[in-house]
């Protein structure tokens, strides 16, 4: 860690964090940074499906079928491991339990897979009971491709790398198999309130 301090440098952060809303080590932001590990996929809606794979079987929804499912609008705080937090973000999406109900499988873990090859792992209990959605709208507008549209996973109680953009489905698993970033140093679970950013945190 550098001992040198740049005179007069503060960075772009806001200082006025409301009590208890911002996890340790995080800074508030007003904008919505676009983070990307690769080119933005552009899957036409006619070809888009969401699939849950369970053992050898699978169940899937086309875009029309997915959008016909009951959805809800939620306001949540989001926390990115790159240290920015954004409060009161408004999303519309299908609760993940609505999708998982269609599958008769009690596997404890899932691996979310996405257009572009991104993956992330989650315990199934962390995406049930109002904790996660497959979101298709942000701020009242259809989700922009740069932010993961047409649909992304939304799991606000964990670091935002778990809210996989361009999500196309889940593989249900017996083991918690690390995904794209979890294989590469990021924490398997990722609780921002325990500052679980990296392996061993």
């Amino acid at each position: 860690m550098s001992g040198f301090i740049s005179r007069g440098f503060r960075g772009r952060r806001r200082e006025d964090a409301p009590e208890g809303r911002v996890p340790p080590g995080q800074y508030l932001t007003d904008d919505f940074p676009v983070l990307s590990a690769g080119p933005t996929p552009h899957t036409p809606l006619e070809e888009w499906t969401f699939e849950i794979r369970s053992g050898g079987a699978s169940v899937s929804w086309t875009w029309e079928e997915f959008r016909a499912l009951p959805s809800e609008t939620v306001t949540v705080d989001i926390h990115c491991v790159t240290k920015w937090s954004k409060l009161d973000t408004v999303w519309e999406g299908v609760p993940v339990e609505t999708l998982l109900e269609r599958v008769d499988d009690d596997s404890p873990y899932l691996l979310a897979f996405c257009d572009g090859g991104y993956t992330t792992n989650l315990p199934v209990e962390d995406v049930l009971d109002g904790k996660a959605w497959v979101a298709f709208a942000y701020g009242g507008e259809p989700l922009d491709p740069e932010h993961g549209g047409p649909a992304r996973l939304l799991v606000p109680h964990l670091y935002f790398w778990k809210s996989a953009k361009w999500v196309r489905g889940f593989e249900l698993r017996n083991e918690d198999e690390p995904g794209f970033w979890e294989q590469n140093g990021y924490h398997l679970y990722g609780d921002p309130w325990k500052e679980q950013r990296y392996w061993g945190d």
Partner: protein
Amino acid sequence: MEGTAVLGRLTWQVAQVTETRQETRRVKTIALDLDDWRGHRAGQHVDVRLTAEDGYQAERSYSIASAPEQGLELTVERLDDGEVSPYLVDELRNGDGLEIRGPIGGYFVWEARDMRPVFLAAGGSGVVPLMAIIRHRIAVGSSTPMRLLYSSRSLDDVIYRVELDQVAANDNGIEIVHTLTRAQPEGWSGYSRRIDNDMLREVAWSPSESPSVFVCGATRFVEAVAEGLVGLGYDPRSIKTERYGGTGG
């Protein structure tokens, strides 16, 4: 850390700001002094790191503007939504320390022993490393033909304008062609649009001269120019690019 002096360019060192010069409304040149500086090659860059009192850090890369013969100078454009550039352009002053790492880069560099005619294409602040190349060519007295096609929004946005006018007027094998994409002064007879294939055909060397090419600027600008040159018959391997990210040109 004991090993730091030995590691030299491999790790962060604190440079002193010795001079700052406003180039345009949003662009400033910063001259730096560093005890251990062992020189650089034209086209290389340095990484700059800022650290706030609470330990918060931000890092960015900036091309070196000076020729190797001229010490170390950076030219920085202030981006409105930037985090590092507003500090460098608005806050940093003579006597301040600045942490840098480098010089870095072995690919986007020009050496005077390369005798191929050189085509340089710059979008906005992408002119910075190309200026280092031009300054180096002049400093070593090379006569390699060099041509710069420089895209700016308006005359007021042209970085190093006076120096480039002098370089062009000296007429010793370096040609400067400007295009002003948003606003042109009264009586402007030069190009007044974004670089396109027609312009490249008129300005760039013929592929038969086996030129060496350096293109620098925003990602979209660089990709458009590189594709255009390949379309004109340029060998893709002769085209070196440095993409700055961001939009515009």
